[in-house]
């Protein structure tokens, strides 16, 4: 689909573009964020400070960014892919040297008024680069080994840097998101089968390497794995979070204890209750109805994105939309699985709900791409 074709095929121009924005996604994103504001208000003990106010400001800024990006033609973003990726990669390298360390991991760049987490930026730019790559690559070459190596390197470079920070959660998101785009682009089944077999082998190797000279993960990561397998073996330390999270969730019941009535979260049984573990507060206070409601909202966002992607004939737009959808899915699925005791505690926030500036803005930028793709869909 060329630029000329876009013109021919009545791509909306000017303020008419607003009519073509994927409004259901905007409303869903707002609804989920609204859930987030409520929960942050609750965990702060019924106060707008310290979390709700900044979160609302960032959300407002995010909506502006999303709609602004929607107005820009999708081919512009395609041409920005390499620049964006290179910048994000450069920042990741920079973090290695001058990053700010917090809680034992070095992920942030100090930009004065706010901190930037380049790994968040990388989540988007990697999707953009891979989408642009497969848009450019002729279809008959997609499954050729030499054309497989290139995207693998695109994924491996940031994944390696982020893993070293160390940030296991983001690494998993990068690798899975990247893999999803390769899958969507039509890479042959056999490769994925091989990778999955290899991953199983690697996990075995990682577990076997424990305690030897070539131990592959940090001790705390091994402890998290142990805890995941058997949370009761360390009830005071690592397993404590999961046990308490499950108690919070379970005690919510059908309808929950009511807004601001959750005792588990209130009594500080839960750590990081405003970030990674915020879902437990929601589930405790709003019960199964609230938690399942949030899951439905997330699912609807995914469905609208997939719908937009499959009806879009522009390959880049389609791939980016799916890439964002998959990453977004991974975000909430990993977080929910984590707090419900189905996955190890890896430190992934609940998208749009957890407190955090970088994550919120990056998600809104991602949805900006989705919107741009939707608005400039060849019709």
């Amino acid at each position, binding site marked *: 689909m060329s630029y000329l074709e876009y013109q021919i095929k009545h791509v909306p121009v000017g303020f008419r573009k607003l009519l073509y924005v994927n409004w259901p996604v905007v409303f869903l994103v707002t609804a989920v964020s609204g859930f987030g504001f409520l929960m942050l208000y609750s965990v702060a003990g019924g106060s707008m400070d310290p979390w709700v106010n900044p979160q609302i400001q960032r959300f407002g800024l995010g909506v502006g960014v999303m709609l602004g990006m929607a107005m820009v033609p999708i081919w512009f973003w395609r041409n920005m892919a*390499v620049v964006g990726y290179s910048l994000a990669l450069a920042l990741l390298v920079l973090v290695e040297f001058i990053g700010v360390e917090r809680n034992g991991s070095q992920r942030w760049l100090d930009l004065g008024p706010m901190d930037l987490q380049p790994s968040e930026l990388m989540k988007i730019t990697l999707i953009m680069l891979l989408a642009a790559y497969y848009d450019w690559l002729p279809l008959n070459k997609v499954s050729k080994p030499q054309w497989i190596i290139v995207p693998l390197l695109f994924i491996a470079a940031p994944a390696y840097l982020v893993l070293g920070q160390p940030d296991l959660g983001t690494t998993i998101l990068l690798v899975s998101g990247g893999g999803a785009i390769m899958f*969507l682009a039509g890479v042959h089944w056999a490769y994925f089968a091989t990778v999955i077999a290899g991953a199983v082998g690697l996990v075995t190797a990682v577990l076997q390497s424990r305690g030897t000279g070539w131990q592959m993960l940090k001790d705390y990561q091994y402890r998290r794995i142990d805890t995941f397998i058997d949370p009761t073996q360390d009830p005071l330390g690592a397993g404590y979070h999961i046990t308490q999270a499950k108690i919070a969730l379970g005690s919510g019941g059908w309808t929950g204890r009511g807004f601001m009535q959750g005792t588990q979260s209130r009594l500080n049984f839960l750590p990081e209750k405003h970030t990674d573990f915020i879902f437990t507060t929601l589930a405790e206070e709003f019960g199964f109805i609230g938690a399942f409601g949030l899951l439905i909202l997330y699912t609807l966002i995914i469905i609208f994105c997939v719908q937009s992607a499959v009806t879009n004939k522009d390959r880049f737009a389609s791939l980016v939309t799916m890439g964002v959808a998959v990453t977004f899915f991974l975000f909430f699925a990993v977080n929910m699985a984590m707090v*419900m005791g189905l996955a190890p505690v890896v430190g992934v926030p609940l998208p749009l709900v957890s407190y955090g500036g970088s994550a919120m803005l990056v998600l809104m930028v991602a949805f900006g791409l989705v919107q741009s793709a939707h608005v400039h869909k060849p019709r």
Partner: protein
Amino acid sequence: MPLGIEYESAAPTMKRGPKETEDGARRLSRRALLLGTAQLGIIAALGARMASLQVDQADEFRMLAEENRINMGLIPPARGLIYDINGVVLADNAQHYTITMTREGAGDVDEILARLNRLVALDPERLEKAREELGARSPFVPVTVAERVSWQDVARVNVNAPALPGVVAELGRSRIYPQGLDMAHVVGYVGPVSDFDLSRIDDRDPLLQIPRFQIGKTMVENRLERDLRGSAGTKRVEVNAAGRVMRELDRVEGTPGADVQLTVDARLQNYIQARLSGESAAAIVIDVTNGDIKGIGSAPSFDPNVFVQGISVALWDELNERGVDASLHRRPLAAKTVQGTYPPGSTFKMVTALAALEDGAIGPDETVRCVGHLDVSDVRFHCWKRSGHGNMNLNESLKQSCDVYYYEVSQRVGIDKIAAMGRKLGLGERHDLPMSAIRTGIMPDKAWKREARGEDWRIGDTVNASIGQGYVLTSPLQLAVMTARIATGRAVKPRLVRSIDGVDEPSGAGESLGLNENNLRRVRGAMYDVSNHPRGTGYRTRIATEEFRIAGKTGTSQVRRITQAERDAGVTRNEDLPWNRRDHALFVAFAPADNPKYAIAVVVEHGGGGSTAAAPIARDVMLQALYEGTPPLSAYPSAARGQIADQQRRLNDLIRDIQPGRTTDEA
């Protein structure tokens, strides 16, 4: 690659035919739907898990959360004990019962407190504090309502438990100091950790978050806090809806704090405090062979036990002498041995003498004529003996404490060499004992005055310093170290801690100071004559026992010059002055003179003459140390025996029978 591709010129899809585009789009859609379906599958799994936790197992979890909430608590470790050199316990842990209460458990706080008050007599002040704390802290934090509760009261609370939700009687440990005021200035005391403590110390130990956790506030308790505290254990308990502990699930014991053994001898310390009682004074005994501090007393003292649970305002004011005229302050809270600094007076003369001898500025037999005063650049400096001493050599000048000899000699040596000798002997140095607020004192020289005062050194300053007046300030500890160093010729280093957790601390015997042994012998000989020659200033306070002869030096340091006006008004004697302006009395000594074992320094604030106020105390304490108990009367010169017998009888009431071992037991 997309970089540099201009969409007008080389849109990538232009290379593809319509068929390929169609193919790609179809495959993408197929796989997108596939992936979407997989996602829906996972979402369904998440939803199922949610339903299982929140609907199926809801009752179970709600019970865990509510009826049987699991609480995690810290177990405070037993604080390390502090022993004296013979194993006498100086700081012990006593068990006692505490009644605590949580707001959450109680519900109606006032009603429950009223019920509790009917069962157990509660201290109204404490109760008010507890009520305040209950309002301020989180609802589940236990707040102490009553401390040191008797067993009967505990039983009464337990029997009435159903009527007292949220109220728990807990077994706790608390510090006690069996030696009372004897060790207040050495061991110090612990107290409940305060917000001020938390802001001041960089310590992330979770134990400090326990309300009213006891930490060392002063002296050894404070300085060796890390060793004494130990590390926390943890326990998991099930509590019911009322917050009552139902059962303990498991516990990980912490590590108890390390025991500390001091070099101090509790019995000697007891004698020192008894002997000093009534005075505002300090006395310190050092074992010259290894630097061990055998006794380090300061009077008046206080009972450290009153601080452990938090001191009352009235008592605090009393100890700080609020409402007492400032001129009469005796500072019971100050450890004068290390925190008080005094002009050393004539006890400094050994420093000037050694500096002059080492420098060769004067020979040992060279004489200086004392006519009762010496004029130095238009200022007349008086000797204490107005009529003059006549011709003085080194030995005579020390023995009779002639001032003019030192005025003269000091000008020949110069202040910098005197100061260097003083520092060599430990003056002006902050000896780092595990005690609080140790003072450095001042060993002045030219550079010091320029820096501290912004003025040039004047010759009169040297003359003043030569007899330990002027800018010179020393603590009793420094004077004792100085005496120990003169007695041994080695850089004796004071040591207060014998061992921590069974590991011995390094000895303080020290290396040789590199002084000429002949010069040292002459100074020691002169000190021997001070105490044993009939003309010596300390002759009346000699020791009669042949093998325990004492060698000392008296000192009387002016607090303030007597003005001409006062002199004209007839004030010439100390007794005529108000207490706070009388001279400080000092005495330093070592014994046995021929084979030194102990060095001692005594300072009696505003006590008058060193020979009359300080020397008798030093002699008595020294004998007590040498005999390891009450000395026989034969150790005293015959003239003094009657008076000493009276004194021993009087002090007997203050001396306690101290035996090694613990006085309290952990039940």
